[in-house]
């Protein structure tokens, strides 16, 4: 097994892809935390803990769940809204959950508006602007999610979570695979269960400090 660990950055001027450092994706029924394969059970707990600790926990929904292009996408979108509402209910004063879409993958020129969207070609701009210290990608095409996750790891200290509908993401610090409505709801339930048990790092360094 690789000694490399997928940790919050800023890691490098050009950080390596975690796969090229020997990090392997989880098999069905598994997840990974920092590049180490683990049970989904543990991953729910850790994802919920990271969300509840963060000053600006943020969900980045992508095009696969933003548009009602099939019934499954619409149901997932409803579940994501529920997750966000749960997060809002469970955080403490001073924490500011956000829901910022990645509506498409076009490079945004001359300038992205980081308050309303995130873009895979320069996701760090949105992280920095909003001082986001924990985020979750969901409904983003895998290639674009990997670009984003790696650029975020390279230039920010933001903790990244991927709720992937396919095989998962090694470039996230924590990744689920085969995401479904049930899995999103289960994460929401875990956040609710851990409410009040996790101390937010309100005075700690955030993703914007780089």
């Amino acid at each position: 097994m690789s000694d490399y660990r997928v940790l919050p950055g800023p890691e490098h001027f050009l950080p390596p892809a975690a796969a090229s450092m020997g990090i392997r994706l989880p098999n069905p029924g598994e997840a990974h935390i920092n590049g180490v394969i683990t049970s989904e059970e543990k991953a729910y707990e850790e994802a919920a803990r990271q969300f509840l600790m963060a000053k600006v926990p943020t969900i980045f929904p992508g095009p696969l769940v933003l548009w009602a292009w099939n019934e499954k996408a619409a149901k997932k979108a409803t579940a994501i809204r529920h997750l966000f509402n749960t997060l809002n209910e469970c955080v403490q004063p001073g924490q500011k959950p956000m829901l910022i879409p990645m509506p498409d993958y076009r490079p945004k020129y001359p300038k992205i508006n980081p308050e309303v969207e995130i873009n895979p070609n320069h996701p760090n701009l949105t992280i920095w602007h909003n001082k986001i210290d924990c985020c979750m990608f969901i409904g983003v095409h895998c290639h674009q999610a990997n670009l984003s996750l790696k650029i975020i790891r390279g230039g920010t200290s933001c903790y990244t979570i991927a709720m992937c509908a396919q095989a998962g993401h090694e470039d996230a610090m924590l990744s689920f695979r085969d995401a479904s409505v049930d899995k999103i709801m289960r994460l929401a339930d875990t956040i609710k269960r851990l409410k009040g048990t996790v101390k937010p790092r309100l005075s700690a360094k955030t993703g914007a400090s780089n």
Partner: protein
Amino acid sequence: MAEIKSVIGTQNKKGQVYTDPWKMLHEAPRTPSFFTGSEVIKEAIRRASCDVMIAYPITPQSEAAALIGELFAEGYIGDYFRGESEFAVMSQCAGASFGGARVFTTTAGPGTMRAMENFPMWAGARLPIQMIVTCRGINSPLSIQPDTLEIAYLLNTGMLVWHAETAQDFFDWILKGYIVSEEPDVHLPLALCCDGFFVTHTKDVVNLTPTDMCLPPYDPYRSPVPCMDMECPPVRMMRDPFVMKSNYISYATHASWQQEIWAAVERSRKHTIHWLNGLVDTENTDADIVIVASGTAVSQGREAIRMLEDEGVRCGLVKVKALRPWPEEEIREATKNAKHIFVPEFNVTGWLAKEIRATVPNSQRVHAGPHVCGGMTMPPEIIVSEIKTTLGMKTFSLAGRGS
């Protein structure tokens, strides 16, 4: 995956049953058939649920391309046409794949070289196109004969590269190739190479799966990039000044994009090992002498090993099946006991020996040879001779007869 599972057990318009690929390739009955390599390509594609095949004639793949035209006439392929050149063919393959089709093509030698610009583009765009490369000479003075030099140029394109030894490999790997390259965490093109003529134009007994079974269709909705979308990268990038921007963000995006392609090659390792039963096959790797080879050089190596055994010299064999992903750990492990590693190749530069030298410790153990090229055959006697010379044993020159 749910969408794919839902079609299994149903029939296509030819009455073939969409079958679980593992069951089709590992459990279904096989029929021994005496076919040329070109005919085997046709038979694999008959069972591959291909949407589009684009052809351009160049020896030695022309026969396979023409035979697939027959499949189109029979209704097994969605669309089939001839491009204006290999460059055009590969560009048209990209268009079809961007649109969400399962795409197949074949080329060889100078055709591979002419189309080269497209291959990193395919990989960068995450297009799981399968291209058969029936290797032949590429240099001037022109030769249509077997020579594997073109594989060296494919190794750094970001494509998966496999090297078949036999027609049986070819049949199985064409079908398995689609499964691996279409995995959402891989989703890369595959160059499935063989040594032209030696495999394409010779007959062999090949065990075929039933004709009434076929792979499930390609599901473009599992792609890691949106299919055809002119507003999104990579298409957008190709027409957008973003590609020309001189700033850190633009460079960092491009760098991350390239890294992601090679990360996908890495991810293919797990799937390739699963479907090909390892990236390498090995025999007698406890021997002091190990032959490491790919393609038909493996067959020649195997025969050389048999001849050496008759003389009391024991050799091991490593058959390299996948060149990308590169079986680094497997080759290190298989050669750890070897005092001498011989790498017979059908090309002048010895690209496989260079890869192996860069992989194993104590690389002075690697003997880059014997080489033949330009269409020469590689009699096992010259491998035997190379090994015996190294061991200080008496040998003779195969083609020499004195003055």
